[in-house]
């Protein structure tokens, strides 16, 4: 997994609420058997029209907005559990998504892929969206070590919460599986000491 420490970049605003993973990556693109290439199909049905031509009114096709930070409305990533949504955002080049709420599974998937789901207050989200609409070149600083996000032009900042274990993983580029593998003895102990065991299912 790639490390994420400090990021200063411009951002792309998508103020809609409840952006679901079917929009982030439509189901028909889930047929790959590896993790590559999903970025090309990110938001496909919003990005392209019926004839697969770029839809000029969609924000990702608007050249005045760019950057590795996506700023989205509340409840981002709801719907399907597809991790492909996180791969698509990351593959496209996003490293941070800012929203006032993330759907649970999406949040976990993002963190497992080096993509930071950064939750801010609704007021701060409005402030960022407002700045971006007046000045598309507004730079945002995301400081994971210090856990704050800041609008660079005027230093307006907000602290954000992140689980300390997840933070350590992101800062170092570790994923959960390395950690879990190190617990093998504990897991075996647990298995042998359970009060009730559902019998194995293999027939």
């Amino acid at each position, binding site marked *: 997994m790639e490390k994420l420490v400090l990021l200063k970049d411009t951002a792309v605003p998508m*103020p*809609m*609420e*409840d952006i*679901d993973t*079917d*929009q982030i990556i*439509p*189901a*028909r693109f*889930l*047929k*790959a*058997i*590896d*993790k590559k290439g999903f970025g090309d199909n990110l938001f496909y*049905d919003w990005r392209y029209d*019926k004839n697969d031509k770029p839809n000029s009114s969609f924000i990702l096709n608007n050249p005045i907005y760019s950057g590795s930070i996506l700023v989205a*409305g*509340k*409840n981002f990533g*709801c*719907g*399907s*559990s*597809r*991790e*492909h949504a*996180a791969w698509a955002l990351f593959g496209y080049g996003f490293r941070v998504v800012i929203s006032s*709420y993330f*759907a*649970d*599974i999406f949040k*976990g*998937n993002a963190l*497992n*892929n080096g993509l930071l789901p950064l939750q801010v207050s609704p007021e701060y989200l409005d402030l960022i969206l407002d700045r971006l609409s007046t000045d598309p070149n507004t730079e945002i600083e995301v400081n994971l070590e210090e856990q704050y996000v800041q609008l660079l032009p005027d230093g307006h900042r907000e602290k954000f919460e992140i*689980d*300390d*274990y*997840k933070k350590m993983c992101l800062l170092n580029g570790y*994923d*959960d*599986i390395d*950690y*879990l*593998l190190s*617990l*093998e003895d*504990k*897991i075996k102990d*647990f298995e042998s000491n*359970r009060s*009730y065991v*559902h*019998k*194995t*299912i*293999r*027939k």
Partner: protein
Amino acid sequence: MGKTLFDKIWDAHVVHAVNASQEVLYIDRHFIHEVTSPQAFAGLRDRGIGLFRKDQTVATADHNVPTINQHLPIEEPLSRIQVETLTKNCAEFDVNLFGLGHENQGIVHVIGPELGITQPGMTIVCGDSHTSTHGAFGTIAFGIGTSQVEQVFATQTLLVSKPKKMRINIEGQLSEGVLSKDIILYLLAKLTAGGGTGYFIEYAGEAIESLSMEARMTICNMSIEMGARGGLIAPDQKTFDYIQGRDYAPSGQEWTEALAYWKTLKTDSDAEFDLEYTFQASDIEPMVTYGTNPGMGLKVTENIPSGLSSSKQESFSKSLEYMGLQADQPIQGLAIQNVFIGSCTNSRMEDLRIAAKYVQGKKVKEGVRAMIVPGSQQVSKQAIAEGLDKIFTEAGFEFREAGCSACLGMNEDKIPMGEYCVSTSNRNFEGRQGPGARTILASPLTAAAAAIHGKIVDPREN
């Protein structure tokens, strides 16, 4: 203070606490399918390890499979590769696979309960958000991402944070013509698509207790549409009766032991929830959705709202535009072109029986394409044994083979652009049933009625 059902199961599965919020949870059963597993198997291969507890893993092919001519090779090359990759991976890693052509094949959330694999008190995961379905048996069941599929493969555990607890009580009895699908669409309309975010829901109350196991599954299935991590219902005699005798259910002495344990699985009377709601079953009527998230629902007799709260206004307008509908318009009478009865929400025997009873002796309205897609090979076989397939085909329905089908349109069962589909599935997101498809979620009864009338009608009156 007493414990909730959720706490009892959760606490019995904690292997290790990492910090105040992250815990390592032991997973009893792991279901996998072709879409969200290939990258996880690849991960194991890269690490040079196998499955830690392969006997607790079960695989099936469901999302991509065609629903006609399943005995022939899959035509669509990418779908074929994905299904073949699952077969190869299961052979290489020695995983129990109910693949295409197997008598136990079907939608993962239909076959788990049907085979008796799903049992009270378990933790169950699958790389699929509707894993919440299994909660109907009093299990903690939830969807996971592909990285987590790999974690479970490798360690039979997951690193998770404990969700908050919500209880939803439905008091009283449902009226005639109102099904469990209407309950969950009603709850979604009341609590919204984000209303359960961060919570694990327990459903309780007289109306829930009166439901059959299959009807309970429909409710738990759509917990995720509220943003909840999952939903569960305390097991009772119906649960035990449903499980007993199934292929993978315990028997003999093991059954006696299991039953003794399962009977302890209920919320203590003095347990506390972080949030609790109570609704009256008598307020619930047949429901449909009008928008592009499952929380945008209304009674079939109501008009589409004039608007939503200001923060939702943009999504609301965009939704209506996509759906080709107007604010304040009645939903009843809207002409529809497709009906899909299927998906892990409503593709079990009871759903098919309800639909068949309604359509028997009637004809699908001219110009409507109506599909019945059983949830599994076993459901299909049973439906044929009961003669339901004939009732459906005589009425003008297509009776297809088992799979996810038009629920997400990964196979060729797609709804054409711009057309309406009354669907018993769980998601009405833009493009869910095919690019430009307009989905209206409903119960199997309301869907069957729409097929016959060619429009949205109140199934109680028509």
